[in-house]
């Protein structure tokens, strides 16, 4: 078969790959000025972003339909590249002042983002697997990047072991799925599963779905597969933790959305209860453990676990009704996007503080209101948004999930009530950092020095969160979220 490659469709990935190679050379040839890797990486990301913008509204597929560019893919690509810009911005001073190998770091970071970029286009089990590994494998190294710090080593090792385990489970599921359906293309799997399966194959298919779900459960840190996350986030460099909590997690969700809505929709009666249980456990345990946290990054880690529970909830609401599924799909996707903005903002503030406090206990935020008023207001906005208090963006994310849950009725209402109670509980810990910043007396008097780039992205994120909160219709101007679902 003569393959014609659609180069326009893979242009963003190509540009990023080129940049990755260039960045790798920086360390070798520009030893004295290796921070130069960051502007170089940034240029590549922006170029890739522009290339992605040329794909808006397009529908292309290449490599035998295993790589598809559609509204869903473009939206996620734009999102990942924006996240990349933010992560790069908060990385510059952190790594430049930290004395690490900067070229190497930016190389790894961009490689991870390359995986993210491919993820929403992957409509084939194999490509999906490659994308996922491309996201994770550099992540193991980045988590352990503070080589002299034992915690960082622990972070990398834990992440690596759990990551490999989950990959193995998922890969096993994928191979079973291939055995049952004889296809690796998601759409073809969907057709095969919707048809009549023999008795034995039916069971095998369900087992495969279960294994794949478990594998992704690790990636999105759903309970009971979450225990690596807090240790890894805490030990990893803060910008890496920001990456893991947002882009890496969103990539997991992008993959999960495609699998569940394209490949496995016919078996929804089997997997919706699984997601219901996962969702309840994840949000409840995430929230209640978060209440105990005294360290900022760990608190954000448990927050991100709890939030994953909210994002998983819509999966439990899928029915045979395609129109309703579109809303369900949109609710989950919107939640992921808004969550990432809020969380990135919070991590940016933590990055700023990490310059004067390595261990980052919450008490180190004491009195920051006096020393860094803008960061304090921003952090308060992010925390209230994560808790879902209007008029912040996070409210609408929750609102959309409640909305589809109530519309679903029955189990949906029960899930909504559990989520509501969880949201109320969460405010208790989300207010912990603002409380320290505003109510406590400062420990130091000297003015707080925050890198310009970090303050900048924090401010932009804050404006975005408030803007979405006041006029959520902004999100409706994105390409239709539901292109994956429906007739």
């Amino acid at each position, binding site marked *: 078969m003569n393959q014609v490659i659609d180069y326009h469709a893979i242009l963003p990935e190509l540009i990023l790959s080129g940049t990755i190679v260039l960045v790798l050379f920086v360390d070798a040839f520009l030893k004295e000025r290796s921070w130069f890797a960051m502007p170089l990486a940034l240029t590549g990301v922006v170029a890739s972003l522009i290339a992605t913008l040329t794909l808006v509204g397009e529908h292309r597929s290449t490599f035998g339909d295993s790589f598809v560019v559609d509204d869903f893919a473009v939206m996620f690509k734009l999102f990942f590249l924006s996240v990349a810009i933010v992560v790069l911005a908060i990385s510059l001073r952190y790594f430049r002042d930290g004395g690490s190998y900067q070229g190497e770091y930016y190389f790894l970071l961009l490689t991870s983002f390359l995986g993210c970029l491919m993820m929403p286009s992957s409509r084939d089990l194999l490509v999906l697997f490659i994308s996922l590994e491309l996201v994770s494998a550099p992540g193991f190294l980045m988590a352990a990047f503070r080589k002299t710090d034992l915690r960082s080593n622990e972070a990398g090792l834990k992440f690596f072991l759990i990551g490999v385990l989950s990959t193995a489970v998922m890969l096993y599921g994928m191979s079973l799925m291939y055995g049952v359906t004889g296809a690796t293309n998601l759409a073809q799997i969907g057709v095969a599963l919707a048809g009549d399966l023999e008795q034995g194959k039916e069971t095998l298919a369900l087992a495969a779905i279960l294994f794949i779900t478990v594998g992704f459960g690790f990636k999105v840190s759903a309970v009971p597969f979450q225990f690596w996350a807090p240790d890894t986030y805490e030990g990893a460099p803060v910008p890496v933790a920001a990456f893991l909590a947002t882009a890496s997690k969103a990539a997991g969700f992008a993959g999960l959305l495609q699998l569940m809505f394209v490949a496995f929709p016919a078996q929804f009666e089997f997997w919706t209860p699984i997601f219901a249980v996962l969702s309840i456990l994840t949000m409840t345990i995430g929230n209640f453990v978060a209440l105990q946290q005294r360290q900022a990054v760990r608190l954000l880690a448990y927050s991100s676990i709890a939030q994953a529970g909210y994002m998983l909830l819509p999966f439990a609401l899928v029915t045979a009704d395609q129109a309703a599924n579109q809303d369900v799909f949109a609710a989950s996707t919107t939640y992921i996007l808004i969550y990432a903005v809020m969380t990135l903002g919070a991590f940016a503030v933590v990055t700023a503080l990490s310059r004067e406090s390595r261990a980052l206990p919450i008490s180190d935020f004491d009195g920051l209101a006096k020393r860094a008023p803008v960061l304090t207001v921003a952090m308060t906005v992010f925390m209230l948004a994560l808790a879902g208090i*209007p*008029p912040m963006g996070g409210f609408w994310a929750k*609102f959309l999930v409640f909305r589809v849950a109530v*519309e679903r009725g029955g189990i949906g*209402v029960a899930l909504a009530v559990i989520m*509501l*109670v969880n949201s109320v509980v969460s405010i208790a810990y989300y207010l912990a950092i603002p409380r320290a910043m505003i*109510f406590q007396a400062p420990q130091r008097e000297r003015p707080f020095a925050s890198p310009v780039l970090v303050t900048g992205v924090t401010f932009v994120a804050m404006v975005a969160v408030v803007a979405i909160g006041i006029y959520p219709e902004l999100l*409706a101007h994105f390409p239709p979220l539901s292109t994956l679902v429906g007739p």
Partner: protein
Amino acid sequence: MNAWEESAISIATFLPLVGALVIVLVPKDKERLVRGLGIVITAAAMVIAVGLAIDFDYGSGAPLQFELNTRWIPAIDARYHVGIDGISLPLWVLTFVLSFLCAIYTWRYVPSPGKTKAFLALMLMLETGMAGTFIAFDLVLFFIFWELVLVPMYFLIGIWGSENREYAAIKFFLYTLFGSVFMLLGFLAMYFRAAPHTFDILELQAYGAGGGFTRTFQLITFGAVALGFAVKVPMWPFHTWLPDAHTEAPTIGSVLLAGIMLKMGTYGFVRVALPILPEGAQAYAPWIGLLSAIAIVYAALACLAQKDLKRLIAFSSVGHMGFVMLGIATLTPIGINAAIFGMVAHGLITGMLFFCVGSVYDRYHTRQIAEIGGGLMQKLPYLGGIFAFVSIASLGLPGLAGFWGEVMALLSSYSPAGVLSDQVGLFRVFMVAGGIGTILTAGYFLWMLQRVNMGTVPEEWRDAPFPDVVAAEWVSWVPLLVAIVALGIFPRLIIGVTDGAVESLMRLFAG
């Protein structure tokens, strides 16, 4: 409808929020400018509000005036629908008046630890949230405004409160949030049950009145929505956040909390819960009545046991709101009129009481009744006199504002609405309980006055150079004192406004 009429109430409502942003941008050292701006902004908003109240067509049968209904979030069918009717007008105007008086009070008193800019900015945000709640006619919009008050009030209590402020602030936040999330769930349920789906309060009212919602649905949804409102009112037994919040809050926080925020809950019952879910209201009315009767008696007994002056006033709020809820529970026009009158009167009187207690604390630096030790009348004759006057207004002396709300509520519970004809006996028991409550209320207020106002000045305060009522206090208090007398003598000032809207709303329950 010209553009001004359409946008005027929105301008008045959002003016404080814009003002808050302006104040944040003023340099820190311009202290006078910040306080001046606070007064100017609240004054401008109040002028618009009062102007609209004068412009309001009281004889009109139109359901809403100054209405604006435009697209906001088409994706979820939420619209920016605002307007004013007889029920919301008094509360809406009260919001602006009280906020303005608070801004004047702040000219002189910014509670420790200062930070005037942040203090006024939060107060102005609060004002927008409160005012918006009373004009929103879309449930999503209503919810946003409703929640908008949480954050500013949390920080007002948490930063400028007294010793136990952090605990009180988080308790207030969690408690209210807990109630309101169930309210949101109820709103969504109504949205999906109505055909066609809508968040519009008027459309839902028409749908509910036409019997669109099944009885079971109404029972469940009313429970969810009422929980949100009940926590805010607060009804017994959801009141425990209130004494803490009031005791710890700065004076301005207490005034606005008691004066307006509590009314959001009772207003929610009248605006949303009753008309949209009439069968639910009917089923829950005896229970609401029971909780109200308990609240009245319980609060009075609790007041008798208080040692802290501010906590005593806070508990008295629980009792007064009990009368308001009792009026609502009767589902009669008189009861609802009584409730709205009671809300306004309580806003004026209890707001004023918190001003007095704040000023007493400012001089004595204690709120313990025993430590003040009596002799307030001798030491500070004006302050003592005003305090006595307002306390007596609060206990419901005829001729002052506090009287009408209570007596009408009791009156209406003698003969509740036609749909409650089975429970007449029960409501009469509530009436008796309420009557006992008024006696106890008189008892604890008079006893309080006896301990604080009467007697001789204790040794330790005799030479203390306390100033009597100062200019900023006079300016912010006189309008309230005048209003308390005026409403006492001319109750039609409120009832004349509300009656038309209440009558048309309550026709449902005539039975």
